[in-house]
């Protein structure tokens, strides 16, 4: 199914020229979804809605009008974004039967742009996790070495040559590689070609982590540029809708569609990203790239360091100035997050009572009993644990020592970034995860909390400071798994960030995965 391989620019040209129709594209995507169903990227397949959108898109192309770069493009939406009339579960029992009466702003914008929503993707319950194994509906699996047959192609745009250096066969003992989390389903939907783009959410790395493991581009925009209205809250001061795609240009196109002030989200600010167009051939001329030394943390695999080194050197040889910098409070970022996250969660999750929506366990004698039993049954241990911890940190006698202290440390972390930007650095280049995708057998041995504390080391600080960050797949390791790197930029510099990301994409030529059917 070559039609699912290309960039959306290529596909829209074909749609305009009528070499391909929106309905054909939609059917191809739905069929691909079927072929990779055992990876379980989707909780809900929205085939009816998809076919309806595709049909309308086809009519538009037929009459010569089209709504822009996303018209007719199959996309996926993480299941913590409200979609009117379509169940939105957050991967939990609590919202298993919840059908929203409204759609998230970003979903409405995608629909207005003509995008074809083919399904709601799997996630760690309520976005808490870094593996997408903690979902009520079962785990999502990484497509790499999963047993799904695929080729790896060398060239960026056309299937010019097979890359046969890397193993693609399934791993032994029925083991599999985690997709990363919490937006694992979205990452797999893009990596498998079931969609061209996907919406995710990033609070501590939940878009960049699975993007890294699944070898796709994953963008966390600047906080405030993309509306959170309809994104079921985890940590209001850090949540950002995130974007997945196989090409930086595609992600840029999606950003231009979903970004912008939303009167229904008071934490959005105006931006000019709606007219975002990346340069055809971005240049590194005059750019200063910072390498924060603290990001080489203990436990980071050598192959990740090597890749980081090689790309930094490559950028330096090609005109950028590369220098080592320091973000001294990096080591506190994860700890700070481990306080602020539960505090906001404890507050946000008071809404889950079973009274107005969601799961409900009957207890006729007392409201409190009903609440406790409902919440106990509807929320998994990870969620419950965070609520308890959050309430602990918010107790009157603890508030200063934990919550206020964490807020102050957050400012120190944010100031670290400010100082680096003021010193003349334009972008930061860092690893994303400490290793390539982990095997499920290994991943599952460590509890969720510890796992996140380790895996989120490099991604977390960007959420603290609200700065934009993007995951770029660079190469494959000897096991055939993606190694990726991360770029970060000052708040609001998403365009510059994506330009540099595009430069890297053009120069590393990551082998492209093509599913064989």
């Amino acid at each position, binding site marked *: 199914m070559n039609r699912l391989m290309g960039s959306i620019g290529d596909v829209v040209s074909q749609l305009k020229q009528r070499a391909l129709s929106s309905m054909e594209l939609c059917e191809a995507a739905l069929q691909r979804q079927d072929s990779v169903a055992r990876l379980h990227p989707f909780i809900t397949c929205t085939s009816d809605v998809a076919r309806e959108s595709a049909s309308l898109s086809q009519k538009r192309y037929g009459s010569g009008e089209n709504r822009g770069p996303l018209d007719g493009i199959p996309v996926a939406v993480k299941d913590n974004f409200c979609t009117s009339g379509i169940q939105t579960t957050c991967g939990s029992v609590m919202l298993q039967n919840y059908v929203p009466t409204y759609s998230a702003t970003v979903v409405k914008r995608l629909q207005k742009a003509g995008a074809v929503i083919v399904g709601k993707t799997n996630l760690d319950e309520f976005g808490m996790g870094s593996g997408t194994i903690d979902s009520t509906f079962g785990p999502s699996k990484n497509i790499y070495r999963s047993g799904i047959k695929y080729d790896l192609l060398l060239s960026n745009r056309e299937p010019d040559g097979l890359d046969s250096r890397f193993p693609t066969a399934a791993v032994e003992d029925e083991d599999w590689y985690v997709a990363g989390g919490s937006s694992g389903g979205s990452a797999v939907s893009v990596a498998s070609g079931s969609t061209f783009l996907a919406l995710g959410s990033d609070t501590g790395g939940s878009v960049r982590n699975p993007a890294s493991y699944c070898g796709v581009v994953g963008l966390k925009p600047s906080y405030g540029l993309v509306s959170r209205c309809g994104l079921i809250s985890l940590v209001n001061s850090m949540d950002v809708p995130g974007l997945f795609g196989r090409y930086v240009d595609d992600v840029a196109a999606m950003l231009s569609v979903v970004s912008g002030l939303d009167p229904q989200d*008071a934490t959005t600010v105006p931006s000019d990203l709606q007219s975002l167009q990346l340069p055809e051939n971005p240049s590194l001329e005059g750019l200063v790239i910072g*390498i924060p030394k603290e990001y080489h943390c203990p436990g980071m695999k050598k192959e990740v360091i090597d890749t980081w080194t*090689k790309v930094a050197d490559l950028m330096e*040889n090609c005109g950028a100035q590369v220098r080592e910098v320091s973000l001294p409070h990096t080591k506190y970022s994860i700890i700070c997050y481990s*306080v602020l996250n539960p505090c906001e969660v404890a507050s946000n999750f008071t809404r889950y009572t079973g009274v107005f929506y969601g799961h409900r366990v009957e207890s006729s004698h007392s409201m409190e009993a009903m609440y406790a039993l409902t919440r106990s049954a509807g929320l998994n241990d990870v969620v419950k644990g965070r609520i308890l911890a959050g309430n602990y940190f918010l107790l009157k006698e603890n508030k200063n020592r934990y919550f206020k202290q964490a807020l102050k440390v957050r*400012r120190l972390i944010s100031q670290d970034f400010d100082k680096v930007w003021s010193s003349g650095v334009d972008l930061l280049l860092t690893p994303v995860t400490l290793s390539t995708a982990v095997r499920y057998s290994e991943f599952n041995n460590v509890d969720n909390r510890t796992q996140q504390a380790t895996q989120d080391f490099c991604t977390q600080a960007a959420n603290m400071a609200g700065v934009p960050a993007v995951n770029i797949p660079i190469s494959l390791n000897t096991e055939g798994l993606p190694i990726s790197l991360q770029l970060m930029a000052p708040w609001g510099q998403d365009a510059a960030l994506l330009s540099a990301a595009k430069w890297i994409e053009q120069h590393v030529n990551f082998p492209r995965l093509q599913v064989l059917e």
Partner: protein
Amino acid sequence: MALVCQRQIVLRCSWRKLPPRISVSYTIPQQAFATAKKVADKESKVPQHPVFPSINEEDLLPKTVVDLKLVQLLEKLSLVDFANMEGLVRLKAAISMADKLSVVNTEGVEPLVTVLENRSLTLAEDEVRSGDMSEELLACAKETIEDYFVVPPGNITYTEQKGYHHELENSDEDT
């Protein structure tokens, strides 16, 4: 040819100067990276050894005692029915990690509540945009009567099973 072209590409890195089909895409990425390093012939800016994030355990404040009374209070505030052995283990681990924040000197530092603190944020106009949705909204709930959401009596404190309180009392003696 491959090696020579790589060096040219790495040094010049201008897409316009490159003949169309000869690009980095025809070379194995690892080789391009390797060549890049050799050509540069200076030390990489990427630290080759980990920077250890050490937090001096001795500087930490004394550990909080998580006792039964605290657990009952937290359960009352949380209403998640999780104040059992497992919940306690998680709570203690979370507190243990959070305690490390106390070593950071935050004298004179203001709390950062939102990264948008220096920006002017727009408030929505105080106008009604939607309504007449009582049926749809009531349909979301499991228990409704007429136009009402139904809840059991609210003035009764939730008491947990006696069983695990007893368990907690015993285990606290051990820890």
